[in-house]
């Protein structure tokens, strides 16, 4: 029942606590971050390119507030990943991008973040802009109900991203981060 079954399996998958089949895959990818302006959960305008090209390594995922299945799990996982990474020399910057801009206003995102105690940036925007962003990161599957669990990591100044597709534990994600991100 994993997103990938027989696809390339990361070595860390062996660390899974349960004997279930590995349910995520790690790859390297380059994406052209589009020059687009989005809105954060405070209602502030954010230039995506600038936000992601700062002096901190970034972790990006894709969620929507009315998703009750994997999104809460992904958000809770990010929260725990944040704790796993507190001792890292480079403080990670987390960004969650809504894949349902029609419904997810800044107010909705802010309430969602509060519900989880998540203190990172949540982004929404004009439907067409958000779609461009999702496409740029190969994160759009034609409908929000068909969303994939995707987590992206990038080191400061790097031109490639580490892509984790599927659901992993917080510790697995932390290991992938430590191995690939600086």
């Amino acid at each position, binding site marked *: *029942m*994993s*997103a990938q079954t027989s696809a390339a399996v990361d070595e860390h998958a062996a660390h*899974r*606590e*349960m*004997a*279930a089949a590995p*349910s995520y895959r790690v790859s390297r990818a380059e994406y052209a971050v589009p020059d687009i302006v989005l809105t954060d959960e405070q209602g502030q305008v954010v230039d995506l390119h600038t936000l992601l090209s700062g002096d901190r390594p970034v972790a990006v995922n894709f969620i*929507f507030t*009315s*998703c*009750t*299945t*994997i999104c*809460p*799990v992904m958000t*809770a*996982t990010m929260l*725990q990943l944040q704790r796993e990474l507190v001792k890292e020399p480079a403080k990670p910057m987390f960004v969650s991008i809504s894949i*349902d801009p*029609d*419904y997810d206003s800044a107010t909705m995102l802010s309430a969602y973040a509060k*519900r*989880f105690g998540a203190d990172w940036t949540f982004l929404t925007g*004009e*439907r067409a802009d958000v779609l461009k962003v999702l496409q740029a990161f190969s994160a759009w*599957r034609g*409908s*929000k*109900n*068909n*969303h*994939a*669990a995707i987590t992206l990591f990038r080191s400061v100044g790097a031109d490639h991203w580490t892509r984790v597709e599927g*659901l*992993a*534990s*917080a*510790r*697995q994600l932390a290991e992938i981060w430590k191995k690939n991100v600086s």
Partner: protein
Amino acid sequence: MLVCTAAVAHAASVDSVAAGRRLYLEGLGQGGNPIVATVQGDVAVTGATAACVGCHKRSGLGVSEGGQRALAVTGPALFGSDTSRVGNLTRSRTAYTDATLARAISQGIAADGQILDPLMPRYRLNAEDMRALIAFLHRLGAEPAPGVNENELELATIVSAEAPPGEREAVTTVLRRFVEMKNGGTRQEEKRAAASRRHAYGEKHVRAFRKWKLSVWTLDGPASGWPAQLEARYGGRPPFAIISGATGPDWPVVHEFCERHELPCILPVTDLPAESAAGNYTVYLSAGVRLDARITARSITKGYDDVDGRILLLYVDDQRGRAAQRAFLEAWLEARRGSLTMRAIDPGSTPTYKDWKDVIHRERPDVLVAWLLPPQLQSLTSIASSAGTLPRRIYTAASFTDWSSIHALPIFEQRVLHVYPYSLGAAGLSPFPREEAWLRSQELADLERIPAVEALFACHAIGEAMADMADNYSRDYLIETLEHMLDGTAMTTIFPVTTLGTGQRFLAKGAYVVKLAPGQGTARYLNSGWIQP
């Protein structure tokens, strides 16, 4: 003695079922403590985030999303001997016992020993909470839904004399005709299915072809008397769902009734839905006048360079006008651009040219918002003859005004910005070609167009959802199926964008702001921007 024990056990289980239901829906254990669990091997989740309902849904029939499948956990699915008969999301395994179910919930080991995917959280529940939860799961989905039997699916629609006659007629006529056609078609499908009964899927399909039975409930008198009438109709013969409907501005009374009975109410024709979108059972086309109001406020306060002028809001002093005014005020207070004056216009009056001129001269608005009855707006257009004082922009909205029946001088029309949520056909083409083709083929092209198209869409939506649900006639599952199915649906082009999701209750979330061009019907409307508040 035996009888006595059974009675006690039953009494205990009623409490227990309620506690289990709360745990399932809200993630709260007995004493109101949030439950705790571990998901994906090491991620802690608690309370609402850990509630079963998120993944297994109110119906318990599970969900398939983005390659992840949460299996069905209804009583019949878990404890029944033949899981293939329950839901779309079951796998074949031995039936659960209370003990193996407790093990699945706490350790993620299924009845047949299979390790469940780590997305299924492992719960740390005390014995009492576990007992309550299991008692609830025994009952979940165990009763057949009201309004369905082997051969028939009962649906009802609700109308009242408060709705405009054209709207009522469009809704009831389209529904009756659609049901007639569908039942005719069903006979064909029954024959085909019977012929293919030998095939693996044959039987499931046969069971899905129930005849639709439609009742039209007509409410009489003032809305204060409706709850009693609704209860009487419902008690006599509860339908599976309410389909479409048109009762005018008091739809919230029907909304409350549907919530009370956990009765799905699918796509009623109303521009005044219940104010709080809170509620599970009504799926609306749009937020109606409140959507118009928010879009107008957004266009005024953000859409132009000169947003700091004087705004005059004229609204008809009835339920719709007041609801629009309140929604506008709320949105305007957030942005606070310009100065705002508001005037309620008595619905029983039609101010004269002089009345309007006095108001305009006194207020000197840069922006005028006119949410008025048709004769009132028609009379307002007479201010065009004193052009010197005309506002720069005049906002109207589809919930109040149909510009095909209003005539104004070009100098007035040029200033109009009309908020319009429906699709605009490409030049000269119908925006709803499929619906209009059907209406023509049924010789129903004279019906009022928008409500007829909306009612037809409600029919298609329920028909498609039923087909998807196969033989799982659960009211909650109908809502859950529509939440997925209507997101970005190609079933209708009534709105340019339709989106829905879990707990979302309004299909249309934005609208065009159009300018008026000379011409007829919606060909008069020229897209001048799409706004999503």
